[in-house]
């Protein structure tokens, strides 16, 4: 699935909590950061779901964009499961890319 066709909202978001991006592919990561930051979001990057979970337990996020498969043995589905237990308010704010 590509974000390109879906269109990122052009409305500038007010500054607040950052969005967590979990993606191991640098080109895709670069595009996601550009698209989000251009629309006024702060971003925090993790190149694996494992690193993403560490960040999630350390700080607050507005939402999460995650690849389904990342290196390190933890998948997007695992991230969702973790969220429903530890951060249920974020479980509804998870966007998967594939």
């Amino acid at each position: 699935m590509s974000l390109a066709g879906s269109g990122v909202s052009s409305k500038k978001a007010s500054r607040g909590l950052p969005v967590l991006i979990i993606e191991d592919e640098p080109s895709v990561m670069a595009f996601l950061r550009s698209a989000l930051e251009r629309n006024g979001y702060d971003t925090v990057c993790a190149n694996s779901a494992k690193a993403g979970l560490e960040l999630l337990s350390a700080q607050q996020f507005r939402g999460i964009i995650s690849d389904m498969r990342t290196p390190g043995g933890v998948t997007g589905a695992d991230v969702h499961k973790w969220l429903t237990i530890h951060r249920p308010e974020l479980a509804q704010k998870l966007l998967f890319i594939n």
Partner: protein
Amino acid sequence: MSAFPQFDEERQQIQDVLAGYARSQVLNCLALDLISAQGLAPFSRILTARLAELFGCKASMLALLHGGQARIVHLHSDNLVISGRALRVILGKGLGELWQESMQEIVDVPAAQVLGEGLADEIGWQKFLMTRLAGENGVPAGLICLVDAQTNCSETTDLLRQLSNYVAVALENLRRVVQVTQSSRQWAEIFDSITDFLLVHDENAEIVKVNRALAESRRQHPAELVGASVRNLFVPDQNRAIACPFCPSSQETGTREEFFDPATHKTYLISSSRLVGIGENGRQTIHVLKDVTEHREAERLYRELFDNLQEGAYFSTPDGRFTEVNNAMVRMLGYSSREELLAVDAPSRFYVSPSQRKSAAQDPSRFGVLKTEEVVLRRKDGSLLHALETGFAAHDQAGKVSQFRGVILDISEIKRVQAQLKRERDFNTQILNNTQSMILVVDTAGLVSYANRKCYEVGARGKGELVGNRLEEIIAPSHRRILKNAFENTLGGHQVNNLELPLVRGNESLGKFSANLSPMRDENGSVNSIVTVMTDITDMAGLQAKLVETEKMAAVGQMVSGVAHEVNNPLTAILGFADLLLDSPDLPESARGELQVIMQEAQRTKEIIQNLLSFARQNPVRRSKVKINQILRRTITLRAYDFTNRGIALIERFDETIPDVEGDGHQLQQVFLNILNNAYDAVCETGCDGQVIVETACISDGVEVRFRDNGPGIKNIERIFDPFFTTKEVGKGTGLGLSICYGIMREHGGEISCFNNNDGPGATFLVRIPVQSQAMAFVAGAGL
């Protein structure tokens, strides 16, 4: 007349007395003479002489009567002019006739009546006086005849009557004495003529009589042995204190025993009997010694043969009980001794099927006839003995079976070998008949001498259509030359392997066969026939091609899948950034147009990648029961407009009985649509009356769909499912359509294939869908 007549009477009386005295003297002498006479000849000679003297006659004779004939035993005469012998014949004849006519006691006839006038005159005889001599039972035994007796009639007659009675008695006595003498002599002759040894001894064991045979064997005269001791007759037996070595030890008479003479090595069978009250010495014993040396030898040989025979031999009673068996028989039946076997009381014990045995015994056709048959006997330990029995039934004069005699040959080993051979043969036949290869044996002339079952199945031929015919006949004519060469090569002793030959099957279809020809050699090492093994590789060739295709597609899929994944991420970034750039307000207008081209081409690349991924890694089939006919109708509806517009006939031949299959309706529709599109394009190319036939049918484990068009056919049919392979002009097709169909069908556990029509233009696509896609997991695991 006398000179003194007064004394005449007295003188006469004295004369009579004197004459009577003289007669009585004669009679006394006669009686004495006759008693002492030995034999008929002296008797008759004395008698006739005394009669002539007594009666003062010219001749006297004694005749014996036999069946109406008179035989002159003796003729006493002083003076004869003709030969006595001739006269006796004439007299015998005449007297015999005369006597038959007259039954009187005393007959007085003229001599001429007996002899004839001439002869009577010539001899000078006038009168015959005859009297008969009474014999046994009153039948006259003979007669006395006096010629011209000189006595007064009445006295003479009386005297003659008395005399005849006396002579008759004397004659009878004589006859008896002669008989006794004769029979005594005969008996002695018989006694001597017997070749068995005869021996009579008295109570003291002294020899009374031996026969000539015995005496000769002792080199002595019979008389010399009389009085000798029996014990010394043969070499004395030191161990026997008994006087006679032949006398039975018991008191019973007739007890048989054998005597062996060590000097001559002869064996004698002795039979003895006792005579009581004969002779002065009281009890006598008779021994008969019969030389049985040869019998004993024959018996010994027979016994030896019987006992040493390797075959079992027996004699049995009609109900099957053994009366005599030999050692081999004892051994065969597992007994320890003859006695033990003979003591077994149950005939049925030996024969496993006694009923069969019994009926055989009652079969009259068996009597005296040798029959050989297989029997099963039971050994002592219960184990079975397979044997060949040659025997026959001996029967008595009443026609009843009196004895069975037979020889038993142990054929257990032969049986075992036979059974093993049969097992091996059956085993080999089983192998030959159950193998999936055709196996033929061909002789050097090229004629089939053996063909296994598979040959008949493949060729659907009858028994007579292969054996005896030429091998080439089942080969396609085009390859007969090759076979012939291979054949000659094999005859030369070389093995020919993997010769591919097209074979005409029973249903006229050609099959591809791989043939191996091996030479078969006889004991001299020369090739006498050729073993040909042919294996049907038609299906194998197809399977091989299919396998290669599958492997190729799997490799292609793997590569495509890898490439697509790798390209996908950078492409995402390209598209994303291009999109961001287009959104950028400070983008020059000239750049915007070019950026849009980048966007479009990136998008097209994206679609290609998506298609590649759907060929390589199908989305999981959403399985449900679907109706193929329904899906086909829906698909056809989508294109019906175009077909009609172009004037292309679209013919549906659906089998409404096909079962539902498990599958993804949308994916299957995609497959059908793709094929239909290709068919549409193909028939459009030809331009003339296009026709597409869509057909469904049941197959063994699923459903088959055929799409048959009459277009130009497929050129590179082996590459048709390769990704990016297309025959269409550039830009019209991606070359991925059929690759995707291939992927879908594989995911369904089905298959998709195509071939150019044999019987007309165009091509046919074949889709097979199993009722239940069991093969999916397997195929999915094959690398994709």
